[in-house]
Structures are given as structure tokens and as C-alpha cells.
């Protein structure tokens, strides 16, 4: 049996790798995407364009303005001289944030009355808006504390001591890059597997395959293993790049990571085989792959937290293998999670592998 499967695996790999174009598609774009996305997919704010309207023009307000200009999160575009300029700057998206310092700022400070600063932010990207407001508030609070200290003001009786565990610098690259391992592995594996049977069916060679002495289990294995192989290899390359190129800390064990990876890739292979055996043409297979892939990426927690979704949608994510693998890969990388701690993520993927493989085998017999 294994010789027959092996022969089919070799034939599949040859069919994929002999064609220069499909070989290129498998190797080039994922690597380019890894690098581009690794740098592009960031929630961290850098050089957010801001403008400052300082209506006070005395030493304390200049100090505050200088703190904004000196922050790496912000880049000062212009010092405004009238409030009328604000609307145009924000509407045309030239500035994301305008800091307006009240004309009685210094007087209020000296009189121990609340000195007023207005922050006007472009809410079109609400996440950027919230983060920019967060940074701005921190700058203003720091200014306030140091001013109070220099001028004999009261010290706040309690202070926050905030620490971020697992990712102390709060670098969102550490969150996204391990996620890309899951993302690209899924895309490549699914595409390789989903189109294999459909291609043969369209070319009419699938019937030839069925009249060979191979059983449907053999065909299933022969069609599934190449995807498994390519997916695992691709994931390995990305993991290496995450560690050596992006310097994401890898605290956990590789064995745990690969246990998760193998379960994930087999689950995806099973889904790919199901799609493949359900479709008569490559276009249908591609559509099927898409209809699975896009929601599974969006509803995986790759870019936006699952916890923010409505309850019903959260329950829907429970059948998404990528959801579990993302926790595994981020857990192993950042938290140093052990095999035992990740068991709640591993068994659902094992279950999905079993179910999808059995379903694919059944569909093969029915449609074959």
C-alpha cells in the first residue's frame, strides 16, 4: 500500500513543482509577504502627523509642546496660529491629531486651577484615534506631574505601576509575526490540496486514477501528503524567519510548536480534500477554498481579538482550526507555554483532523 501511496505522492509533487509558474507561486509570494506583512501589519503608532495650536506662548506651554514634538509616536507638521486652520487639517487627513493649548494655560497652572488642553483627533480610524489619545494623555500627565513637582504642588497619593507580561515593550510585531506563520501556512496548504482533485477531474484523469488498483484511502493519502509536506516546510521557513530575521523571542519548546503545527496542517489538509472532492471544476474548488479561507482568517483572532466579537460569532470561531493554532504559536513563542498548558487548543484540532479526513474519504467514494 505504501509503495502505491508513495508513487502518487511523488506524482503529485512533480505535478506541482514541475510547472515553473506554480512552483514560483508556492515559494516567492509567501516569502515576500512574510517580509512585507511582518513590517506592515503593525498597530504601533509612529510619526503620527500632529499640529499644535499654542494660544498661550509662555514657558510651560512651550515645554508641553516640545514634549509632543519630541515623542517618537508623533511628528509635528505645523505650529498653528488660529483655530480656523484645524478643520481643514483634520478633514484633509494631513494631521491626525491637533493639540490646542488654552490661552490661560499658564495662569491657570499658577493659580492651581485646571489648565486646559484640547485634543482633537480624526476618528476615521478609531483605533489610531484611541492610541493617539492614549499617547497624548500620557505626555500631558507626565508634564503635569513634573510641573507639580517643580512648583510645590501636591503629589498624587497613588501611582500606577503598569507592566505588560510576555511582551514588555508592547511590540505588536511580536503578536503579528507568529500569526503570519498560521496565516501563510493555511493559505499555501489549502490551495495546494484543494485544487489537486479538481484539476484531475477537469482534465479527466481522475477516472483513470480510480481504475488503478489504488483504494480511495491510498488516493486520499497520496493527495493529502504533498500538501502536508509543503505546508510544514513553508511553516518551518517562516518560524526561522520570525526568530532570526524579526527577532521574535521563542520561549517555548519546538516539540510543542510542531505538535500544534502538524495537527493544524492535517486539519487544513482534511478541509482542502473535502473542498476538492466536492467540486467538479477548479473554479469551484478555488471558490470553495476562498469561502473557507477568508472567514477563517478574519474570525481567527489573527488581526482582531475574538473576545471583541458578538457571542454568536465567538461560538462560530470554535470550528476554526486557525483559532487554536494561533493561540499555540503565540503561546509557544511569547509565553513559553508548555504542551500541557496548550492541550485545550490541541485536542480540538485533532478532532477536526479526524472528522475532516473521514468526511473527505467518504466524499471520495461517493463522488468518485
Amino acid at each position, binding site marked *: 500500500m505504501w509503495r502505491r501511496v508513495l508513487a502518487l505522492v511523488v506524482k503529485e509533487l512533480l505535478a506541482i513543482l514541475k510547472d515553473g*509558474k506554480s512552483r514560483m507561486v508556492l515559494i516567492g509570494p509567501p516569502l515576500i*509577504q512574510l517580509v*512585507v506583512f511582518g*513590517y*506592515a*501589519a*503593525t*498597530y504601533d503608532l509612529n*510619526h*503620527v502627523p500632529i499640529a499644535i495650536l499654542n494660544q498661550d506662548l509662555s514657558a510651560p506651554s512651550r515645554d508641553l509642546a516640545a514634549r509632543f514634538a519630541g515623542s517618537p509616536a508623533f511628528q509635528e507638521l505645523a505650529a498653528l496660529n488660529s483655530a480656523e486652520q484645524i478643520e481643514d487639517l*483634520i*478633514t*484633509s487627513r494631513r494631521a491626525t491629531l491637533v493639540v490646542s493649548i488654552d490661552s490661560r494655560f499658564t495662569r491657570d497652572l499658577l493659580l*492651581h486651577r485646571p*489648565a*486646559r488642553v*484640547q*485634543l482633537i483627533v480624526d*476618528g*476615521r*480610524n*478609531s483605533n*489610531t484615534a*484611541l492610541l493617539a*489619545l492614549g499617547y497624548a*494623555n500620557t505626555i500631558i*500627565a507626565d508634564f*503635569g506631574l513634573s510641573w*507639580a513637582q517643580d512648583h510645590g504642588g*501636591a503629589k498624587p*497619593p*497613588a*501611582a*500606577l505601576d*503598569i*507592566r505588560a*507580561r510576555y*511582551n514588555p515593550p*508592547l*511590540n505588536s510585531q511580536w*503578536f503579528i509575526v507568529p500569526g503570519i506563520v498560521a496565516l501563510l501556512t493555511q493559505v499555501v496548504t489549502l490551495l495546494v490540496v484543494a*485544487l489537486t482533485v479538481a*484539476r484531475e477531474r477537469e482534465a479527466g484523469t481522475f477516472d483513470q486514477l480510480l481504475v488503478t488498483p489504488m483504494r480511495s484511502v491510498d488516493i486520499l493519502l497520496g493527495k493529502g501528503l504533498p500538501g502536508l509536506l509543503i505546508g510544514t516546510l513553508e511553516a518551518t521557513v517562516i518560524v526561522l524567519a520570525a526568530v532570526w530575521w524579526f527577532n521574535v523571542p521563542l520561549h517555548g519548546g519546538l516539540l510543542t510548536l510542531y505538535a500544534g503545527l502538524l495537527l493544524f496542517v492535517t486539519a487544513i489538509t482534511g478541509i482542502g480534500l473535502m473542498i476538492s472532492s466536492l467540486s467538479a471544476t*477548479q*473554479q*469551484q474548488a*478555488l*471558490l470553495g477554498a476562498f469561502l473557507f*479561507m*477568508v472567514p477563517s482568517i*478574519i*474570525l481567527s483572532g489573527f488581526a*482582531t*481579538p475574538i*473576545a*471583541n*466579537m*458578538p457571542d454568536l460569532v465567538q461560538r462560530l470561531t470554535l470550528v476554526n482550526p486557525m483559532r487554536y493554532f494561533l493561540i499555540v504559536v503565540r503561546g509557544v513563542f*511569547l509565553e513559553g507555554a508548555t504542551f500541557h*498548558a496548550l492541550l485545550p487548543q490541541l485536542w480540538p484540532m485533532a478532532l477536526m483532523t479526524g472528522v475532516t479526513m473521514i468526511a473527505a474519504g467518504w466524499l471520495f467514494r461517493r463522488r468518485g
Partner: protein
Amino acid sequence: MSKRSDGRLRGLLRKEFLQIGRDPSSIAIAFLLPAILLLLFGYGVSLDARNVPIALVAESPDADTQSFMARFEQSPFFQPRNFATIQRADRAMLMREVRGVVWIRANFSRQLRTGVAPIGVIVNGVDANDARLVEGYVQQIWTSWIAARAQEARIPTPIPVSVEQRVWFNPAVESRNYLVPGLIAVIMTLTGSLLTAMVIAREWERGTMEALMVTRVTMRDILVAKLVPYFLLGMGGMAASVAIAVWLFGVPLLGSISVLVAASTVFLLAALGMGLLISSAARNQFVAGQIAIIAAFLPAFILSGFLFDIGSMPTPVQFITHAIAARYFVAVLQTVFLVGDVWSIVVPNMAALVAMAVFFLGAARLMSRKRLD
């Protein structure tokens, strides 16, 4: 143009419409896919951290700790759970039951009166963006608590600057309001390029391209005949998406419909042109499909500015985003939906879209000559 060539084009168009009618997958891509995707995304994609489960540890609870902790109970951002010891709270964080811990040590009240009492805050930093938002909310609670205490004690507030925040165009700071218009662009990229990516490759693969070549139709006719029906399907999908955004998700549409239609037309032509180009370059459905996903969907998702802020990307990556048609469409859509017809944004982005449409359609025309390799 002669009457005869008109007739040929009409014949080809008829063929394409018949083909679409017989293979339901094209109609599914055009209508069903955008509707399903928009529904899923609209409900599924949110960056608004609300009801964040957080652990509260007061080692010796009294009136002071109570006054601070009560603010977490009242906040819409948090769903607090009380723990007796920091060890138990830590465990809960390890098991992902809570996303952060607020830890007030035993001698808090005494320190509050003699010096500066520390309040320990530990957040799970794996999701850095979420962690930062949670930090911001904790900071707000702290600031308002300090100010309220000072007011009660009738002493000048230790926080000398008061900040007034205004969020324009999205006062409730709902991430859905900016994500849904962006999603429309991502989905239209997907359907537009996927629809056409396969169609020419399919003719090559089935050998029907040769059959078309020996007839008297020109390559231009073939391309136009491929473009028109899929353009109509795509615009139908676009209309469905806008309807869902406005009626179901309640995203305000402050700009004019005519700007929306103009931008969608130009964008769809660019997306379809890209699909045609891929299709005629690949001549193979497997490769065409993969390129369409890799060159259209993923960049539209990550590089268009729909989710990740382009201004915060490294300069070389920002440069690359200029080659992504969805980037311009996202900019137009976000502004037309949330702000209105702001010409300083609409005009340059539309110009870029026109240039891209011309480029892709022209390149597709050049790539597909009547020639057998």
C-alpha cells in the same frame, strides 16, 4: 466601427452571459460572497475592547481600595472579578480567563496617607494593541479617581492639566464605522479580481481560446465581452455591500451617491483589469487563482490602510502601498462614508485609481494577443 463587428461583440457578450448563467459559481462570487463576507466581517471584526475580564486583588480590602475598585465595576470597558491573592489572579491570567490584574497590596491605605501608594497593574501583552487600549482605560480610571479624591478632600488636584477630547467624524469611537467601509474595498478587490482571473485562463486551459482565435472576433472584442458582464455583476455586489453597511450596520453615509458610484466604477475597472492581466499571463486556472489571492486579497487586507495605519508603516512599505489599488478606494470610502465629499481626498485618490485602471486594462490588452506559443 462596422456593423459586423458590432454583431460579433454582441454575440460574444451573449456567450459570456449564457456561460455565467449556466455556472452558478460566478453569480455566487459576485453576490453571495460579498454579502456573506460583509456580514461575517461586520460582526466579526472589531477593535473595541469592551467588557474586558480583569482580575482585582485587594490584599486588605477597606474603604480606600473599595473606592478605587468600584470604578472598575462601573466602567463599560471592564468586567472585573475579585481574587483574594495575587497567586490566584496570576493563575487566572495564565489560563486566559482574565486579560489583566490590578493588584493593591496590604498597606495601601497607610501609604496613601504617608507617601505614594503603588497600584500594580499587569496586562497580558501578547496582543500588544489590546494591551495598550486596556492600559489606557486603567489610566483613565486612575486619573478620575485621583481627581475625585482631591475634590472630596478640598485640596488642589495633583493633576494640574485637564484634557478635553474630541473625536471627529466618529464620536462614539466605534471601530465598525471605519472597518466596514474599508471591508467593502477589500471584498470588492476579492470578487473583482477573482471573477476575471479565472475566465481567460479557463479558455486557454480548455483550448477554447484557439477556437475563438480562428473566428473573426478581435482580441479587443474578447476582452470587452469578458469585462462587461463581470463589471455589471461587480457593481451589483457593490450596491449590495453599501446597502448592508448603511441599513444593517448603521454606518453613516454622509457623502454623495454619485461620488460613491464614480469611485466604485473606476476601482472595479482596475480590479477587473488586474484579474484579466493575471488571467492572460497565467493561462492556467491553478496559477491564476493563486496569484489572484496572493496579489489581490492579502495585500488589500494588510496594505490598504483598512486595518493597519499606513502612516505607521516603515517608509519602504509605505512606498509599496502606492501600488495597491485598494489603498485609494479605502481612503475614498472612509471619507465619503464618515465625512462627506472632501475633494482634497476624493480627487487625488480617484486620479490614482483611473491611472491604475488604465494601466491594468492596457497591460491586459497587450498581454493577450492572438498568438499561440
